[in-house]
């Protein structure tokens, strides 16, 4: 029998933050850090102010300009997105009024929220962090309980320092064995969603573990947790280890001095106890994971690069799935087509999933000495201004530019289309982002999700490509 006091990592963090229990299994949970961006944070701040409510601890709230801001060199407050400037100005004004640290358009620390928060040591093991952005789950990679919320919830968190949360069930996804060459964290998460469906994690907080997860560097762990929301999970998290501690050491917002030692000894207790029970367990053999690409309009349409587009599945009622037929029509793919036979028009490297320095290094390794295929528009958008600077210090920008990629300022950019920039109507794009939804990257744009290495290889080949042939 298991030890009744044994707890999962999630349960430990939950218990430490529980202010009060509410009806059923809900609780009032204390929130350590709140992050905002100009897209959804602006409206939360405006609404809070118009209701006459105050941000109780503005020093615990951070805001960045990432979603709407352009990424062209020499950018300013004007945007390709009509009315984008309104969001930028409103955000700047509201942050000033509320006394919130804003990473403004040309701030040297500006960048995508889920890139800069770890980079600056704002997210820390064992803390709760929320943001009105679904990919907040990325930040669970450092052993935090971090999850995406709506704007109203963000108002609640700012006004009360708490959120009313239904306790999720717990799931452990174990990645056993080591990854094969050229297989990345992106391939791991696409493989998982491809195997278990886009709703496979619904209702759960997922702890990722196993040898392959232990072996991932922190940036790759951020990629893995980033797409927990595409698995419909409440969030994803990974127990902090020595890599996490070394990653945070010396970062601007990380604990320092005496606090550092106290924090580290606390962080060292943040793991799921040996006898802790999860409500659900999934085991993945990493030898089964290949470079993975999506063929359709849901992340669950993920298959190995060597595979062909599958035949539509049959529903319980004996009918062919309407969603799958729609996806095939939208993407203009037919069953049994080889993925690598699909010619591309665009290649994008960026987003909170894959825009960190290790992602750019990985892509540059493939691009070095090679040229992007004729007719392919290729763009690289570093996740933060600091990542961009680091890449430039290493000469990666030159590799990207010489191969034919555009080299941009930091932001969310073409991960989603805000009425601004797109690869174009019905263009086929291979992208290191997280969502291949219909029209996500622009009206009727066809998106294939993949790792930055696979994007780079495909950009060179001019069609979806197996990166292993490029190393």
């Amino acid at each position, binding site marked *: 029998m298991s030890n009744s006091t044994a707890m999962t990592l999630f349960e430990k963090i939950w218990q430490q933050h529980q202010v009060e229990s509410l009806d059923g299994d809900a609780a009032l949970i204390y929130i350590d850090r709140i992050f905002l961006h100009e897209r959804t944070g602006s409206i939360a701040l405006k609404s809070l102010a118009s209701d006459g409510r105050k941000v109780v601890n503005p020093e615990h709230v951070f805001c960045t300009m990432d979603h709407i801001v352009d990424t062209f060199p020499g950018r300013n407050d004007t945007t390709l997105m009509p009315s984008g400037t309104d969001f930028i100005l409103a955000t700047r004004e509201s942050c000033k009024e509320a006394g919130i640290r804003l990473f403004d358009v040309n701030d040297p620390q500006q960048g995508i929220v889920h890139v800069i928060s770890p980079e600056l040591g704002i997210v820390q093991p064992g803390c709760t962090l929320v943001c009105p952005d*679904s990919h907040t789950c990325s930040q669970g990679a450092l052993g935090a309980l971090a999850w995406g919320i709506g704007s109203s919830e963000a108002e609640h968190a700012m006004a009360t320092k708490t959120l009313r949360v239904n306790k*999720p069930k717990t799931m452990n996804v174990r990645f056993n064995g080591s990854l094969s060459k050229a297989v990345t964290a992106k391939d791991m998460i696409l493989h998982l969603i491809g195997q278990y469906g886009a709703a496979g994690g*619904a209702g759960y907080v997922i702890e990722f573990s196993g040898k392959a997860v232990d072996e991932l560097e922190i940036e790759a762990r951020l990629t893995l947790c980033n797409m927990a929301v595409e698995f419909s999970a409440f969030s994803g998290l990974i127990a902090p280890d020595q890599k996490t501690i070394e990653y945070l050491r010396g970062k601007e917002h990380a604990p320092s001095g005496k606090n550092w030692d106290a924090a580290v000894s606390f962080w060292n207790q943040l793991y799921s106890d040996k006898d802790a029970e999860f409500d659900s367990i999934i085991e993945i053999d990493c030898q089964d994971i290949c470079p993975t690409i999506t063929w359709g309009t849901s992340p669950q349409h993920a298959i190995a690069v060597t595979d062909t587009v599958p035949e539509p599945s049959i529903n319980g009622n004996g009918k062919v799935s309407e969603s799958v037929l729609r996806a095939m029509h939208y993407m203009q793919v037919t069953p049994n087509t080889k993925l690598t036979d699909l010619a591309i028009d665009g290649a994008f490297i960026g987003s909170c999933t894959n825009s960190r320095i290790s992602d750019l290094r990985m892509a540059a390794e493939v691009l070095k000495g090679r040229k992007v295929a004729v007719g392919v528009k290729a763009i690289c958008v570093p996740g933060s201004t600091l990542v961009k600077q680091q890449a430039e210090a290493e000469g990666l920008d030159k590799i990207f530019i010489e191969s034919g990629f555009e080299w941009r300022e930091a932001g969310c950019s073409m991960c*989603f289309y805000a*009425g601004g920039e797109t690869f174009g109507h019905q263009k086929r794009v291979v992208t290191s982002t997280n969502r291949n939804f219909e029209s996500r990257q622009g009206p009727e744009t066809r998106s294939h999700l993949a790792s930055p290495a696979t994007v780079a290889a495909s950009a060179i080949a001019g069609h979806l490509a197996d990166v292993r042939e490029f190393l």
Partner: protein
Amino acid sequence: MDKFTQHQGVAAPLMQSNIDTDVIIPSREMKRVSKIGLGEGLFANRRYTLPGGREPNPDFVLNKLEYENTSILLSGKNFGCGSSREHAVWALKEYGIKAIIAAGFGSIFYNNCIRNGILPIVLDLIVIESLSAEVQENPQSNQICINLVKQYVESSNGKCHSFDIKPAQKVMLVEGLDAIDVTLKMKDEIFQFQHSYNKDFPWLN
């Protein structure tokens, strides 16, 4: 917030899985720093013939005369997955949607619904498919009745299907409460908690 106890209305089927919030409202339709004026952008990519246009697509369910005054949506698994944008819920609300019956929801979307007085109901897909078939025979007369207090959905043929909802969330909807107001009643408890928390975790203060 308006109270939600029961509702009867026309239901429209969107029987696919994974209808994401980009489908519910495309990013480009979120034009202002505002919660209002979003109803027009609801399902814009499917509802209109051209991106950014306003000419109704006659094939889209909500544009069909027989689905006039739709206030309930029926859908498959994982409705509202994807982006956290609350604009999706504000757009649905402005359009007049009171409840969504699906085989599952994206969790952020689900909470956003509760916050805005829209009732998300989870039923088995097979049940929703039968509701959908019944509704399609005559959408205006085969309306669906929802009772939140007693937690059941009743179709026009009299069949009842019970559903679950977390008690804390049910109270918010039934009483039309503002979550911030309710939580601020516990201000003292939060303050005390924070006081001792800051002693235990000084680096987070």
